[in-house]
């Protein structure tokens, strides 16, 4: 929700800004780190047995090469409540898989990654998510009342603080669009979120039109992962804007207990997710 308030300033600065251009900037290059993309997402209506964890290395900001994947690591997930151990198999392409994961809502899981003589650890609790109640389209809503947007509705449970991650992906796009949502102002109510694409030729972005297909994922996430994604999203979409918070390193939950300075980037999340697809009419 708060992103919307900040959007006000971004929009205002756009009204006044005479021009935007891409320039060359010299940036520093930090040392390479391990990147852990461990997203154990239990899709509603599935067993959740099949899971993949990806490992790679960080790179210079203006890197033009493909990312460097990490092979040869040892990846294990443990259910701290039951003691069950899930070993992930190295697929030699940077991904590590299992087909025996057992997701249990509210249980806490730990991740252990051994790579290059170092051990990285993280723990996370599997959060539930409500169902996507309705998806529809409209023109009048959203930021621009001439462009199509897709609206997603779900019911927020009243008894606790809830945090959500939404992912919109239009078939054919290079990237997903992410949004962080908390129930801070809307606890216990029906929550609604819209996604609209602006007409931006410079950035090769066209508004939605009839026939376009959007995949929508609604994740139930922990408060700490919400904090991580909130910052990531703010920095990703408005990095450098003078009205956004000072950019800072976003630290995930993958620590290195024996060598704390050598922590890993990325996150170990365990979520429940509801998935839907919408085709514009």
């Amino acid at each position, binding site marked *: 929700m708060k992103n*919307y*308030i900040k*959007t*006000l300033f971004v*929009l*205002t*600065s756009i*009204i*006044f*800004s*005479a*021009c*935007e*251009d*891409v320039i060359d*900037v010299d*940036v*520093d*290059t*930090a040392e*390479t780190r391990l*990147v852990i*993309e461990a*997203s154990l997402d239990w899709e509603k209506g599935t067993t959740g047995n099949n899971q993949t964890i990806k490992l*790679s290395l960080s*790179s210079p*900001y203006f*890197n033009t090469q493909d990312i460097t994947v990490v092979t040869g690591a040892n990846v294990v997930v443990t259910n701290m409540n039951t003691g069950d151990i899930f070993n992930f198999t190295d697929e030699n392409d940077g991904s590590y898989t299992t087909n025996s994961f057992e997701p249990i809502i509210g249980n806490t899981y730990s991740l252990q990654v051994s790579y290059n003589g170092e051990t990285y650890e993280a723990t996370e609790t599997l959060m539930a998510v409500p169902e996507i109640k309705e998806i529809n389209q409209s023109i009048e809503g959203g*930021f621009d*009342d001439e462009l199509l947007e897709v609206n997603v509705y779900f019911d927020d449970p009243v008894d606790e603080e809830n945090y959500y991650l939404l992912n919109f992906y239009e078939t054919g*796009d*290079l990237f*997903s669009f*992410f949004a962080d949502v908390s129930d*801070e*102002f*809307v606890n216990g*109510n029906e929550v609604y979120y*819209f996604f609209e694409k602006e007409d931006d030729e410079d950035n*090769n*972005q066209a508004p939605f039109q009839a026939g376009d297909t959007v995949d929508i994922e609604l994740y139930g996430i922990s408060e700490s992962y919400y904090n991580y994604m909130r*910052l*990531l999203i703010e920095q990703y*979409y*408005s990095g*450098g*804007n*003078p*009205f956004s*918070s*000072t*950019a*800072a*390193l*976003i*630290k*995930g939950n993958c*620590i290195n207990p024996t060598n*704390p300075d050598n922590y890993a980037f*990325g996150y170990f999340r365990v979520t429940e997710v509801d998935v839907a697809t919408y085709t514009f009419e």
Partner: protein
Amino acid sequence: MKQLCLVIFLFTSLLCLSQEKFSISGTITDTTNGETLLGATVYLKNTNFGASTNEYGFFSLTAPKGSYTLIISYVGYNTYSQEITLNGDQKLDFELQESATSLDEVIIVAEESETVSIKKPQMSVSKLNAQTIKEMPAVLGEVDVIKSIQMLPGVTNNGEGSAGFHVRGGAADQNLVLLDEAIIYNTSHLFGFFSVFNADAIKNIKLYKGDIPAKFGGRVSSVLDVRQKDGNSKKFALNGGVGLISSRLTAESPFFKDKGSFLIAGRTSYVHLFMPLIEDVKDDKISFYDLNLKTNFEINKNNKLYLSGYFGRDAFDLSGLITNNYGNATGNLRWNHVINDKLFSNLSFIYSKYDYNIVLDFIELDWDADITNYNLKYDLGYYVNNNLTLDFGVSGLIYNVNPGEVKPSTETSSINPLKLDEKRAFEGAVYASAEHQITDKLALNYGLRYSTFSRLGGQSITNYVNNQPVVYNSDLGIYERGEAESETSYSKNESIKTFGYFEPRFGVSYQLNDASSVKSSYTKSTQYLHLLSNTASVTPLDVWTPSGQYIKPQISNQYAVGYYRNFNDNAYTLELESYYKHVDNRIDYIDGSDLIGNNNIETEILNGEARAYGMELLLRKNKGDFTGWLAYTLSKSEQRALGGNAGGPGINNGDWYKTAYDRTHDISLTGSYKLNDKWRFSSNFVFQTGRPVTYPNGQYNYEGLSVATYANRNENRLPTYHRLDLSATLTPNRNPDKRWKGEWVFSIYNAYNRRNAASVGFSQNNQTGLNEATRISIFGAIPSVSYNFKF
């Protein structure tokens, strides 16, 4: 308190030294419009006896019995002299006639009163009068007080089109901005593109960058003292202007049989009328307006009442999706009372309010916030003798802060109502200060202010486990919100927390010769109110918060030395100053702090400190067809916050880092050249080191996105900023007897169309998937024309 008693004792003991002396007192005004003249000098020829007028045009001069020639001078005005015999206390009011050049509106000789007095101990002060400000080229022809003071040494902005200003490496919220003594909480229109001061209603401005007189308090960086005109007390007058962005109209007139006068000034923008014509913004509306009011009424020779007010508003409407409006409202009722020839008093009752409202239509949310204060203060000036002037007084201020209230904007809205705790506080102060000429060459300025601040009850305060609102998570290496343990509820008549500080102020000047002097000063000041902002630029939506249980008052100590010199009989002046400033308890925000709608701000901040030091040079040319100045500042401004009670190394690993308003080099050149009676040309040139920013130092792939990684805060800088503005003023030849006088102002802002970076954003290209840096520049070359008139 003991120190204060000591100072008062010191004063009173000095009073006994005078004998067989008489005083002359009165006010000095302009013959044509009756405006009081501030800082006019009154002296007795061939003696050392002299005085200057205060903010209300009042002076008091004491000399031994005898006959003298009294001389009154004020630059831009004809010098007045009169023979007087001093054999008793006398009251004399004087009117000065503007010098001959005033037939056209151009003042060729820059105001001498804008230069720092060689003799007086006051330093680190910059004065500008409305005329100087109006002569500078401005963005879209909009004369702007805040932008003009940024041409002075030691004053910078925070990027083009951003609100606020920064003095000597201080933050924007550390400036006390007063409009006729009322606090202005937000100085900007249109999110910082223009300032709230309508130059037509302003008499003059004074900016104290250091050596702040004891009568001011409550902010640690500077005081910007803006005074409105009193209103023409001689005849009805109209003046105004038509510009590209806004139009202005000011009316002033005597009333109540010349016992009083008033001024009413209005300004309104009309950008919104043109916006429907532009495709991209056709559904948006942006507008602002403001109203200035000033009236005064003379009850009798010794009693005068003033009422002044300001009301300004900004409104935005972005396609009906987001509507936002904000503004300041102030009022001040003052009673000037001349108690006797030597004792002048002023009682003020002041009201200020700043509020904002946002409606986010698409999520049906309505948000309100405001800050209100009431201030009662009593200031006295005692002109003891020729060598000693005392200022003393008391002040009481009540704050009401409503940091935010969220309401559903429609019946169908899914937003739950929420009201953040209202905060109340009382700030009291008592002060005394002296300007003391010790010998012919040595003068002192010393004073003491005692301020106290009580955070009042009527709300609950959260208690945290281990008394830690913020906790360092050593596993993840990040700061996190502390765990709330309980709440303590305070009733309305209870005080949650009380602070009290002595704030000594000291200045000394030593005159080396007729044309040069050295000065030094020390100022301690305290700030109890903090503006919460974790963004690089201040926004109108930032919330003020009072000190209390978890937020300590900011305390600054500033030391300054300076060298001042006049050349060629004041044709040129040189001011050279150097300063060091340290601020304790400057709050800093943890990485990822979330301030919007947060009732527990203490969970997002650490207690930090700030320091700034630098050297300023100001070379002015005051006389001739060409006038202007060169200002150069070499400075550094840093801050840090250690972990303290929260544990851990602190923000940015506890290292000092550059503030967003650190500028190593800052050069401002401004000049005005009068070609003939018809044409005048002005220009500004600005060159400064780029704003510190944080650039990425790497990336990693996560969820298909390239996520940037960052090292320490503000280690990089935007490209160097430079810009040239030009303007030409045409005053058509007119019959000087005609009442209507007009002028055309043609200007080009950013004449060579430099694409100065307002910011550099980093993002991933949608087509290539590669990262790129995008420069956003706000103003290209902007030509403009405006017409000003006087009737």
